Every structure is written in structure tokens, then in C-alpha cells.
């Protein structure tokens, strides 16, 4: 049982089941749309249209992609370890979906005869929960790379392991400033603390560090070294085909959604926005979408970092900067 935040109500099991289903449905519908959005936007950023052949405006492209992936044969290389190769994508999907649970889409609402929160779960360790599951994804990557029995896969997995460890520290440190200002780890409390001013204003440096470390955590450009198509074929998922590859791919986009959700909740006031409280989830989704679009924009702009640059940037610049930011915030919070 997870330690729940101090709430004055108990949600029934029925509500929990409905919430899980909603989160599941939300993620599984949004990920293919994100895929299309990314390809479309990348196209526009490069003076072209992107996919526009399948269905009107190419809207059915993700469906075609998924159908193709599902109908493909499950293939194991001779040097691979079949059981673990099947397990790796499962770990990725499960951890990514589980971290989705703490993203708050709204405050506590009353209806259907009981109170319920518009979030999966409000744990009092809040953001740490997301980090815990974020670190577990690394087992998926590592297992996938190692179990494929291929050098490129293993290299990709090693790279991602090193990268995740290096940047997770900065990611966590950048968020602690926000946590100190809000005085709570719970994402719901943090959003409530942003009633006046969004934390992106007082914690701008923290936000920059979070953005950069977030790119690295989700293995997105310019930190997409783990799958560096040009050097490593596709990194840890080289030997995966069909829906196993699809699962890795989906997990990556889910991780992006989670990071976008955390960014929106911790820096951009979460569900806060004009209009009645019924519009709260919409504001949250819009803010997440804005962050995702920024992710794609960066991908269209930045070239990939070299491995030593990645490491020296992470340890020599980002980590000291995050620590300094933390220190200054701590002093200011203590004084004010």
C-alpha cells in the first residue's frame, strides 16, 4: 500500500478501477496521436507535409503503423534470450503507465455520490514516485539491450544506462527547488501552491535544468544517443520487431507524456486556468501538449551530442548548476 497524501476522503475501489481504465485509455489513445503530431510537425519544420496519404490528412497513419507492427512475426536472434526479450518491453510499458498515475488533471471534485480526485493517485511521496518508476524503465532498456545478444544493442543499452544515471540526479535536484517552495512533494499540493504565480517564474533556472534533463531522461533529441540511428542502428531496440518494438516506442512516448505532465504540473500551474473547474483537465492537457510540441521543436532543431559532451555537460555543468539553484532557493525560502 502506498502512503497516501493527507486527504479527508476515501475513494471507493470502483472509483480506482474507473481511474485506472481512464488513464489507460487516455495514454493508449494519445500516444498514436502524438506519433502523428510529431511526424507532421517535424515535416512542417523541414518544409514538407509529413504523412498525408493514409486517410484524410494522414490521420489514419498511426493505425496503419500499428496494424503493420502487430501483424509482424516475433523474431528472436540466435544469440538472444527469448524470455527476457519478451519481458523487457513489458517493464517499459508498465513503468511508463504507472508514472502516469500521479499526473494531476484536476482538483478533488464532488459527484456521483462521493468525492474523487481527477488524478490517478495522490501519494505523499509524490514526485519521488515518478522518479522511482522512471528509474525502473532503465531495467527495461538494459534487459532489452543485453537479452538481444547483439553488440549494438548492448552498446545502446550501456549508453542509456550511463545517460539515465547522469541526468536523473540533475532532474531530481531541479525539481527540489519547486518542492521546497511549495512545501510538499504531492503534485496536487504543488499545483494548489501555484494559485498566484506559476513556479516557472521564480524557478526559471530550475525549469531550464529540468527541460534539458527531461530531454535526456526521455532519450529524445538532442540526447537520443541510446538509439542514435546513425551510429548504433537503433540502439537497445535493434533486435526487436513487431509489437515488441512498438512497445518500446510507445513507452518512449509515454515517458515524454509523463515528463510533459510533470513540467506542466510543477512549473506551469497544472490545471489552473480561466473558466469553471470543469475545464481543468482541458487546461492540463493543453499545457502538456505545449510541452510536447516544444520537445518536437527541439528535436527538429538540435543535432545529437557526442558521448563525451553528453557526459561532461551532465556532470560538469548541469549538476553544479542544479545544486547552486537548490542552494539559492533553500536560502531564499529560509529567509522569506
Amino acid at each position, binding site marked *: 500500500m502506498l502512503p497516501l497524501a493527507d486527504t479527508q476522503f476515501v475513494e471507493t475501489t470502483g472509483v480506482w478501477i474507473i481511474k485506472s481504465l481512464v488513464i489507460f485509455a487516455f495514454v493508449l489513445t494519445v500516444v498514436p496521436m502524438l506519433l502523428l503530431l510529431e511526424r507532421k*510537425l517535424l*515535416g*512542417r*519544420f*523541414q*518544409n*514538407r*507535409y509529413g504523412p*498525408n496519404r493514409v486517410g484524410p490528412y494522414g490521420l489514419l497513419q498511426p493505425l496503419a503503423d500499428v496494424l503493420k507492427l502487430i501483424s509482424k512475426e516475433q523474431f528472436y536472434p540466435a544469440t538472444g534470450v527469448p524470455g527476457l526479450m519478451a519481458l523487457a518491453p513489458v517493464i517499459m510499458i508498465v513503468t511508463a503507465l504507472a508514472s502516469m498515475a500521479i499526473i494531476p488533471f484536476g482538483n478533488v471534485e464532488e459527484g456521483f455520490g462521493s468525492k474523487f480526485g481527477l488524478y490517478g493517485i495522490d501519494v505523499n511521496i509524490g514526485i519521488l514516485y515518478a522518479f522511482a518508476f522512471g528509474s525502473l524503465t532503465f531495467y527495461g532498456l538494459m534487459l532489452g539491450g543485453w537479452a538481444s545478444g547483439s553488440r549494438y544493442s548492448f552498446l545502446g543499452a550501456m549508453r542509456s544506462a550511463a545517460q539515465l544515471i547522469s541526468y536523473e540526479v540533475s532532474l531530481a535536484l531541479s525539481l527540489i527547488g519547486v518542492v521546497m517552495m511549495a512545501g510538499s512533494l504531492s503534485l496536487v499540493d504543488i499545483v494548489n501552491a501555484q494559485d498566484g504565480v506559476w513556479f516557472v517564474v521564480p524557478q526559471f533556472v530550475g525549469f531550464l535544468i529540468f527541460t534539458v534533463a527531461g530531454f535526456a531522461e526521455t532519450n529524445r533529441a538532442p540526447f537520443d544517443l541510446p538509439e542514435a540511428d546513425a551510429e548504433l542502428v537503433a540502439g537497445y531496440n535493434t533486435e526487436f520487431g513487431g509489437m515488441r518494438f512498438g512497445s518500446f516506442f510507445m513507452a518512449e512516448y509515454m515517458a515524454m507524456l509523463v515528463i510533459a505532465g510533470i513540467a506542466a504540473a510543477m512549473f506551469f500551474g497544472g490545471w489552473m486556468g480561466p473558466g469553471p473547474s470543469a475545464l481543468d483537465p482541458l487546461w492540463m492537457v493543453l499545457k502538456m501538449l505545449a510541452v510536447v510540441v516544444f520537445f518536437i*521543436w*527541439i528535436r*527538429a*532543431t*538540435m543535432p545529437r551530442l557526442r558521448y563525451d559532451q553528453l557526459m561532461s555537460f551532465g556532470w560538469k*555543468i548541469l549538476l553544479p548548476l542544479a545544486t547552486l539553484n537548490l542552494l539559492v532557493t533553500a536560502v531564499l525560502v529560509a529567509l522569506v
Partner: protein
Amino acid sequence: MSYRPDKDVIAVQRGPDAGGLGGVLRTFGETLRGLKTTFGRLVEGPVTIQYPEEKTPVYPRFRGRHKLHRFEDTELEKCVGCSLCVAACPADCIRVVAAENTPDHRVSAGERYAEVYEINMTRCIFCGYCEVACPFDAITLGHDYEMSDYNRSDLIFTKEMLLADPVERTPLRREGE
């Protein structure tokens, strides 16, 4: 060979020093500049041509599918079956069999006409030598470039196909385009 430090050491080319806090600021500014550049492309809009619906316009001298010509007034074929195009063709893709014109079966303006005129499009390299070799301007290269087919045998164009107008016209590039 022994090691000579003065000659064997090559100076390594390194990028400019990042230079402390100023470097950080500069990097931040350059990142924003990069973002502005890509956003500019977004605003410009796509430049791609949606091929099957929209076709790339060709230049007037574009060498595409061949055409055989007739005289406009008499409807007689210009080709007299002299086989000069066959001789000129470097890909050896033209086959001509000539026959005599008779008073009651007059096909061309000259003494003889091409009974068979075939171009093997799988071999043709669109060099235009046939057009140059022809003394009567009977064969010219048109503007059409969509000639793919499912069968090789369908790509041997007969005289009737070459004499007929192409079904669809390829757009011509305008002046200065």
C-alpha cells in the same frame, strides 16, 4: 623510424573555448537562434510537390516519351522508313521495317513508309539522337515521363501508340520558373 616531437605531433583542432558564464549565455542565445530558424521553416510552409496529383512542370527542351508525326494537311505520316534513327540509336531500341507505298495504299509522303515502327522503352535512354538523325522531323521527344508499366512487353511502344496523342499532358514550366 624514431619519434620526433617537433615533426610528428600534429596540432589538434579544437573548438573555441566555451568561456565560463559568457559561454553559457552565448550557448543559450544560439539555441534560441536555432529554434527561430526552424520556426521560420514552419511559417514558410511546405515546398513539396504532391506528386500523383501535382506534377513537376518540365522545361520546353525536356526529353520524354517519343512522338511520331503526320502532316497536318494531308494526314500522311512524315516517317519514310529510312532507318536513320535506328542507326543513330546508341541503345539499339528502335526497330523499323519499311514497305513500299502504292497508289491505293499511301501511308507516307515519300516512296516508302514504316510498316513497323517500335521503340523498346525499357532500353531507351532518352538521348534524343533519333530526333537529331531524322531528316523529315518525323520523330520528336515529347514531355511525358510517366511510362511505368507492369509488363516489359507493354513497354515496347508500337507505331500506333507513338502516333497517338498522349492521354495526359505534362505541365510545361513557365518562363522564369
